[in-house]
């Protein structure tokens, strides 16, 4: 069977997008079901992809190539290896859960799902594209609907947050565009094909040292790492739940993925020379995110800052440039993607019900919404890397890698987890314990079918937490070949 499986995954949301566009806007249920069907199809296909994927083969698999603008060296080239295949699965899981979680959206349903499908197309596209031009195009496709989603369906301070998010992200991708054009304009180059550039060009050390920071800076902005993070807490808190889940869960991981896929892959020497700087930035981000989270009163912002701390761990693992650290970084991206999605799914329901996210106004909710409370506790525990959930092995690998890179940086980063625990448990105590605020005596708990998407996320957390070997086996050969080159 020679099904072009990656293109099929990519086509699922695109076809759904087209079908939703031609559906009359009052046919709300058909629109929702179309979106759900597309996400389910992509979930099934990406599960099949994981099954067919051969971890031991470190070359690109499932590659497809179509000429697009061959005269300009631009082709539709897609493929996955161990570094990227897990993100396809992550995106599919989060998309599926996000669509079920946004079933309650009632305002301009058609436009909402059009934007969401557009976002999903962009997200799937960036992780499979092997052509820099294609990569940037898909990124653009993902960013613009994010603006609309935030501004039209968002919550508090949505215009400000949406504008900030888009400006930051476009600045980041502008830097990347400059970098890609430089690579294109090099003598003997004339192509955007990543593998071709790697094979045919050899960069000397001084060039690598100059070009690596450009790419790294662009990707750091996209991945919301300190000090270019300030779009993320605002943006993710203001976005509607599904968009927050997809963006915080998946799209910020793209920045870190880009550092690995383009930065380390093309410029290993540059990455090694700049590792000290990126590791310091990562440590600053880890501590800074945790410290900022302590004082936040808005639950969404608090989670947003904790995400920055978590992304700092990813960058730290990447900067360590050893196998443990890189494995850990990839694992952490996947695991944190699930955790962030779960947290934003819970916050979305809470905000829908209470119309506030201020933890001082909430209180005593455990008697009204026990199920939500349980979900929150599980998500919080996963966020602070409790053993048994997938955050723990991920953090462990990053930590071991970082200690191997520099013991002080590793151990200082670990300290942030205590602060994270303090923040999350203070928030949980304020929100769910104590006397019930009479204003919230009419709250309704999650309807039973809304458990399903959250249970899927929790199952993923448990599976990879108890059997992390499964995940490590997927990524390790590719990581090794990346580092040995």
């Amino acid at each position, binding site marked *: 069977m020679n099904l072009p499986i990656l293109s099929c995954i990519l086509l699922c949301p695109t076809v759904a997008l087209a079908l939703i566009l031609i559906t009359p806007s009052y046919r709300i249920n058909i629109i929702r079901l179309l979106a759900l069907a597309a996400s389910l199809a992509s979930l099934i296909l990406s599960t099949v992809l994981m099954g067919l994927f051969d971890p031991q083969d470190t070359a690109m698999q499932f590659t497809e190539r179509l000429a697009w603008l061959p005269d300009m060296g631009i082709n539709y080239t897609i493929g996955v290896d161990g570094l990227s295949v897990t993100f396809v699965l992550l995106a599919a899981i989060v998309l599926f859960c996000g669509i079920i979680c946004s079933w309650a959206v009632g305002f301009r349903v058609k436009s909402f799902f059009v934007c969401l499908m557009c976002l999903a197309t962009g997200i799937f596209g960036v992780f499979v594209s092997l052509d820099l031009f294609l990569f940037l195009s898909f990124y653009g496709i993902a960013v613009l609907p994010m603006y609309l989603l935030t501004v039209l369906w968002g919550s508090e301070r949505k215009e400000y947050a949406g504008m*900030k998010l888009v*400006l930051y992200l476009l600045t980041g991708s502008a830097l990347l565009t400059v970098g890609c054009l430089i690579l294109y304009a090099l003598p003997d180059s004339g192509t955007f094909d990543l593998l071709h550039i790697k094979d045919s060009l050899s960069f000397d050390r001084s060039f690598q040292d100059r070009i690596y920071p450009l790419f790294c800076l662009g990707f750091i902005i996209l991945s919301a790492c300190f*000090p270019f993070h*300030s779009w993320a807490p605002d943006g993710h808190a203001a976005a509607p739940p599904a968009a927050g889940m997809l963006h915080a869960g998946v799209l910020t991981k793209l920045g870190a993925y880009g550092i690995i896929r383009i930065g380390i892959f093309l410029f290993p020497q540059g990455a090694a020379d700049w590792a000290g700087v990126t590791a310091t930035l990562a440590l600053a981000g880890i501590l*800074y995110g945790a*410290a*900022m989270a*302590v*004082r936040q009163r808005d639950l969404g912002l608090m989670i947003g800052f904790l995400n920055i701390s978590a992304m700092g761990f990813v960058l730290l693992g990447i900067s360590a440039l*050893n*196998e*443990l650290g890189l494995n850990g970084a990839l694992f952490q991206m996947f695991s944190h993607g699930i955790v962030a999605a779960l947290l934003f799914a819970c916050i979305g329901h809470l905000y829908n019900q209470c119309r506030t996210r201020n933890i001082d106004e909430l209180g*005593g909710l*455990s*008697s009204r919404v026990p199920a939500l409370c349980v979900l929150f506790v599980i998500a919080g*525990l996963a966020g*602070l890397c*409790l*053993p*048994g959930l997938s955050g*723990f*092995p991920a953090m*462990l690998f990053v*930590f*071991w890698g970082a*200690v*191997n890179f520099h*013991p002080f940086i*590793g*151990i200082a980063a*670990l*300290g942030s*987890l*205590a*602060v994270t*625990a*303090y923040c999350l*448990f*203070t928030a*949980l*105590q304020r929100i*769910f*314990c*104590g*006397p*019930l605020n009479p204003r919230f005596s009419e709250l309704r708990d999650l309807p039973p079918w809304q458990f399903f998407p959250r249970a899927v996320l929790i199952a993923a957390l448990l599976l990879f937490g108890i059997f*992390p*070997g499964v995940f*490590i*086996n997927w990524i390790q050969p590719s990581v090794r070949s990346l580092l040995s080159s």
Partner: protein
Amino acid sequence: MLMMIWTVLLSPLAAFVVILCLPRRFRILAPAAGIAAALASLCTCGLFFLPDALKHLTEQGTCYVARWMDISDIALRGLPGLPAPVLQDIFFGLMLDPLNLAMITVIACVNFFVQLFSFTFMRRTDGCSRYFAFLSLLSFSMTGLVLSSNLLESFMFWELTGLAAYLLAGFRPEEPTAAGAGRKAFVINRTAGLGFLAGLALLFLGLGHLSLIDLCGPQALANLPAWFLTTTGLCLFLGIMGRSALMPLHVWLTEASEGPAPTAALMHSTVPAAAGIFLLVRLFPIFSASPTVLFFALAAGAVTSVCAAVLACVQPDIRRALSYAAISQLGLMVMAAGAGAPVFGFFHLITYALFMALLFLAAGILTQRHGTADMVQIAQKGVFKQSFVLFFFLFGLVSLAGIPPFGGFFSKDAILHSLSTQHPVFSVAGFVITLLTAFYSFRLFFGLTAGQSPDRESSEPGFTKIISRFALFSLALLSLLSGFAGTPLFGEKLLSWLAPHTHGIPMNPLRWGINSILIACGAAAAYIIVRIGLNRSSPMPSSPGVLQQKLSCNALYAFAINEIGFRLAAACGHLERLISNRFVGGPAWGLFRLGGLFCKLQNGLLQHYLLVVVVVLFTVTVFFLTAGGILR
């Protein structure tokens, strides 16, 4: 035969899962599931003491493991000053040796009786089934921690015990104090656990594996530099300090004492407080590799033990007094390990776990009957008639005070022996602790028996009374027996079985004499102060302010969090505003102004446009004229 160890581990887990999955109508079965699982564990533990099974049990231990993670082919460079480690795959599984077996048996005993007692105590509470689920989770995680064959696995179970303790301590979420106690328990244990994790990372990156059997083997730590052993040992010890509630990390345990009585009993006697001591004994080869670490442990244990004993002397609340007493005893066990005799500490842990559980359960009944935990109020309401509960409470107190021949006597004597042979200075601390222990135990003893007025009839139905009495009676009996098992009278079977190379405890009449005199002095002092104080109806002589503030530990944390932590966070907040206002807002504002400037060009006024046309025309004309050389 030894494979049956899986039953001990998995039956509480099964109970946890079953209880969580019970439909609402069958919630009433939750206690039955929990108790059945605990009984299964206990019986399996008992089976291992049959001669048949004991034969198979070797000193090195038997392992049943499976590969958890496949990382052996990862190449790393070494830590500074160390050779590159050869990583080994991480195997998880169970290990069984005499130390483990003794520990899980004690845990299974305490757990079974506490569950039995919980049935009588908690069955009318809201969320009773949830409570039993958490109890089973706690017992599962503690058993896993004890039986782990890999240090990383121990750590995972260790964190799970922290979670279970959080859930149990914060069991009634609507009570603010309960939620606060749970949070404190989790955050402190988490912070200390991170120290442990850092120690694990150093060990792993230094040696390449974390297998317990290899780590504790004779040659495991040879050729490692002293700084590495000291740093690793201190990091690991930080974790143990948090878990065993050594000062200043003890605050969570005293708050947990105000939770439901069975929870408090479990948390003080076995999980998680005893987990720290167990790991200290288990990892003793690592700690003993560095004299600095051992001395630190000795000093930390001594400070904790003395301070907590002093605090226990002034607590009006019987649960708090017991809690400080427990911390003091835990400190004593750490001292034993610091003096190089971890087995004696472990022996004390066994007797301690049994009588401490007894004390907390009995205190729970007293507190529940009288609606208060204040010693004087209970005494005034008249406690005499509840002779059965009171009898066991007093039994526990006497064991705690260490009067021969009760359990606490022999184990405490072993610790004093090791202190006096290794560190004469610290043996003075040991004797001070003996005196203080006698004082606070007898203070409770005389305080509670001082009451005169008649008791009300208890309204409990007969069968629950029998169950709770059975639990108390069994615990008392076991604590009495366990003390004897380690004595010279029984040929020191227990100690030589746990650690074959231990020297016995010589009978030292001088030490016994000093001990007895000190205990008598403590008891006499308690009698004088309490009885005379009560008779004068000014119940207790007021204690110094420092002690009332509990040595200001809570204030210390409040200061650290509010003054230092929040200030730092506020500084970060300023930085955040600086970033978004100056570095991002600044350029944005500049662009905005630039746009405003260009706006002026298109303000719609015809005169302005005309002016621009004239100016441009003039400039162009002048330029060309100059260029053409006409205007010179």
